[in-house]
């Protein structure tokens, strides 16, 4: 049997094998009848998806299977000696059924990237479903911090040694681990859409609320009525562990002057947080001693819904992640699907994807800078200047996709529809005549302003190495002087053909993060000019899509450079019409990893400036 390494470079596999003989195994599906692969120790068994069909035989699983005992050693080796410095994505998949000799298990996967570019190394670790426990890597890989908490929250995998293993999106005391395959929601109908009751000759229409006795999104235990439950609910208990953490973290034992500290909750309804985001802050006077972000107020069960949906049904849902950039969300998901399908995209569709992504980036960065001005107290002037230009871009998006924010435009194999008459001319006028003028105006409005400079320079400095360790991507990383851009590091689509620079700034403070966004707008306009000139005629879709299209079994991690950073989709297919696992590496969430360090010791007003410079969308953070 010839060893394939999936997306992993073969030399990585060779050096891993040389360093850890007998410990690792390529995580691929064994050929049927290969008796030797069974009956070996746990660390030698394979990663497998649950079989629903005989399609499962194809060796499409990627990366290396590691025993939990060696996880940290292997991660260190991959980072320090092979140069895969960015632990980008960490997630899990639940396999509740025993299959082909592998007991039921939870498969935790780590995706690492090299800053110089190229593919990823995927490491898989198995743990039993009952009493699932793995060593935490947060101490050495800070980017795992929030992601390990999410895996604990969703799958119930304990991470031994994690400094603060609380639930991330659900509340403390929530019953069960929702992304396990045997967990069912209150409005449960069937495992997978399409639901049978909708078909010809099907059942009666029914409101979702009619399906539960409480007529609400509540699951009641047998001996409890709805009223009792609501009366007894003590929400402060859920926060108990948060406040314990707030009081214990970042203590200075030998403070010369004994002062009283207070805990202040900024949010969840705070105008600076772009949605419902709460920051619990421990203050000494006006100085921040410790900040703890609290997530989950906008949690919409996106991944659970995604696993119920068919592959195509997920596309309109991705619009609702980072709702400023529906186009790039669509694109990332479709690219991940295309990696599994192995489809080619027509030339015109490739150009359309680039044009839409870059328009989206221009809009996002304008808005980010505009709302930053709102956050530091310039109020809505800057935001409204940005929103005016966004209107014009949204007009373009609307006339091609039909919606102003919910585009549902990309499809695996191309895009949904071709451009209407006159669209390109309108886009060219916008890119050549209007946007450069307006961007220059806005840039001078914000960056030449001495008050803005005084307010943002040398505030919230994020060093390059710290940024890499925290898994930060996008403009926030590049403002810290790291020239890392997925469009160049691992080009997708046709980005190799375009002439543009990966711009960086040096200091990594709030001012640089805002200024860098303007630098990037200029690069996007360069790409747009080239793309609008070179776009050929032709078809925009290479395949006829079936409503219940099947995707060959396998797993993949597809990523793009979204305006906010690396947006990745980790998909596992079991050959069926629905994703077996559908995970989003949410850029905004992981960019918040260093928030606690960045705000330590600053004044309380600077929290808002720092948060604004990170540029987050809560729709993506909480999913």
């Amino acid at each position, binding site marked *: 049997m010839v060893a394939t390494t999936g997306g992993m470079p073969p030399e990585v596999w060779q050096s891993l094998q040389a360093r850890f003989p007998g410990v690792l195994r390529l995580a691929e599906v064994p050929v049927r009848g290969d008796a030797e692969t069974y009956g070996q120790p746990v660390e030698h068994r394979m990663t497998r998806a649950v079989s629903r069909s005989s399609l499962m035989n194809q060796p499409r699983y990627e990366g290396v299977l590691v025993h939990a005992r060696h996880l940290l050693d292997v991660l260190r080796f991959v980072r320090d000696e092979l140069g895969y410095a960015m632990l980008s994505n960490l997630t899990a998949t639940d396999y509740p059924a025993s299959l082909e000799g592998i007991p039921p298990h939870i498969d935790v996967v780590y995706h690492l990237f090299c800053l110089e570019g190229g593919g990823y190394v995927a490491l898989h670790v198995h743990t039993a479903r009952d009493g699932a426990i793995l060593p935490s890597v947060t101490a050495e890989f800070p980017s795992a911090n929030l992601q390990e908490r999410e895996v604990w929250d969703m799958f119930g995998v304990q991470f031994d040694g994690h400094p603060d293993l609380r639930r991330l999106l659900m509340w403390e005391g929530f019953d069960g681990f929702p992304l396990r395959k045997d967990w069912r929601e209150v409005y449960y109908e069937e495992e997978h*859409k*399409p*639901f049978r*009751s*909708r*078909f*010809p*000759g*099907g*059942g*009666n*229409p029914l*409101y979702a609320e009619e399906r539960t006795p409480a007529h609400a999104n509540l699951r009641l235990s047998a001996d409890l009525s709805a009223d009792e439950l609501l009366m007894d609910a003590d929400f402060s208990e859920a926060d108990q562990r948060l406040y314990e953490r707030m009081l214990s973290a970042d203590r200075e034992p030998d403070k010369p002057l004994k002062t009283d500290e207070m805990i202040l909750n900024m949010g969840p309804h705070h105008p600076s947080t772009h949605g419902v985001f709460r920051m619990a802050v421990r203050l000494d006077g006006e100085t921040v001693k410790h900040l703890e972000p609290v997530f989950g107020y906008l949690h919409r069960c996106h991944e659970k819904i995604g696993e119920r*949906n*068919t592959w*195509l*049904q*997920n*596309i*309109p*849902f991705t619009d609702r992640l980072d709702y400023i950039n529906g186009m790039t969300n669509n694109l990332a998901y479709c690219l991940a699907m295309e990696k599994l399908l192995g489809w080619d995209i027509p030339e015109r569709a490739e150009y359309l994807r680039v044009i839409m992504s870059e328009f989206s980036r221009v809009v996002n960065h304008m808005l980010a800078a505009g709302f930053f001005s709102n956050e530091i107290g310039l109020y809505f*002037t800057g935001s409204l*200047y940005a*929103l*005016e230009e966004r*209107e*014009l871009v949204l*007009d*373009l998006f*609307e*006339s*091609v*996709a*039909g*919606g102003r924010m*919910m585009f*549902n435009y990309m*499809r695996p194999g191309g895009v949904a*529809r071709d451009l*209407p*008459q*006159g669209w390109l*001319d*309108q886009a060219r*006028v*916008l890119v050549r005549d*209007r946007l450069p003028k307006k961007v220059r*105006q806005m840039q*001078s409005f914000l960056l*030449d*302003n*001495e008050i803005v400079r005084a307010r943002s320079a040398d505030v919230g400095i994020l060093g390059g190495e710290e940024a890499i360790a925290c898994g930060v991507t996008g403009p926030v990383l590049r403002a810290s002087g790291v020239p890392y851009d997925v469009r160049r590091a691992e080009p997708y689509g046709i980005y190799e053909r375009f002439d543009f620079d990966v711009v960086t700034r040096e200091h990594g403070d709030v001012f640089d993060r805002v200024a860098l966004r303007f630098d990037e707008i200029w690069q996007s306009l360069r790409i747009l000019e080239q793309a609008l000139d070179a776009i050929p005629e032709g078809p925009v*879709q290479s395949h*006829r*899509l*079936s*409503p*219940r299209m*099947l995707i060959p079994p396998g797993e993949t991690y597809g990523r793009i450079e979204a305006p906010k950073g690396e947006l990745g989709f980790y998909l596992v297919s079991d050959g069926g*019409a629905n994703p077996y696992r559908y995970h989003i590496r949410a850029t905004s969430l992981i960019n918040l990893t260093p928030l606690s360090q960045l705000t330590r010791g600053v004044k309380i007003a600077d929290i808002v400036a720092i948060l604004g410079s990170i540029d987050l969308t809560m729709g993506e953070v909480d999913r």
Partner: protein
Amino acid sequence: MIVGWGVLKTLVMTLGHFVMTYVEDVQAWTERLGGGRLRGADASAARRRGIFTIQYPAERRALPEAYRNLPFFVIDAETSQLRCTACGICAQICPVQCIWIERATEPESGRPRRYPVSYYLDTSLCMTCGLCAEFCPFDAIKMDHDYEVAAYRRPGFVSAKELAKPESYDAELHPSAYGASSTASGDGESTED
């Protein structure tokens, strides 16, 4: 550079915006008296200055052909019947599963007929993604341009009769797509399963 020059520039810029708002507003005064103007997406939009606000409902945006809100069912001009054949593809593709279909059967033999006996679409669930219209192989379901659908009560299940609209309405909304053969990427009734 003089300290304060940047702030001064900013103030001049803001003042310019402020003045321009009134200039544009005054210029459009007569149009407003006449019941509002249409502001659409065309090449002239790139020259737009002043306020971008539309004085809805006195003024309205011109909607592009691709605009989509809730779906409607097309009544065929020749037969005066719904075009729907109850194949169920729209119910399969609908991400929020808000479409219910029951296919008619022949009373004697019990064999299925190619029209729906009942057809429901829950407009309170619909996310207006447009996948149903895109995948319908018979052009029987299209996306509407009507966005004023607010009601005092949750409308609940809207049967096909209330959402059914004549073919001429479709031709009016989608002039360039109308008449062209089905652009849907649906596979007819042969679904893989």
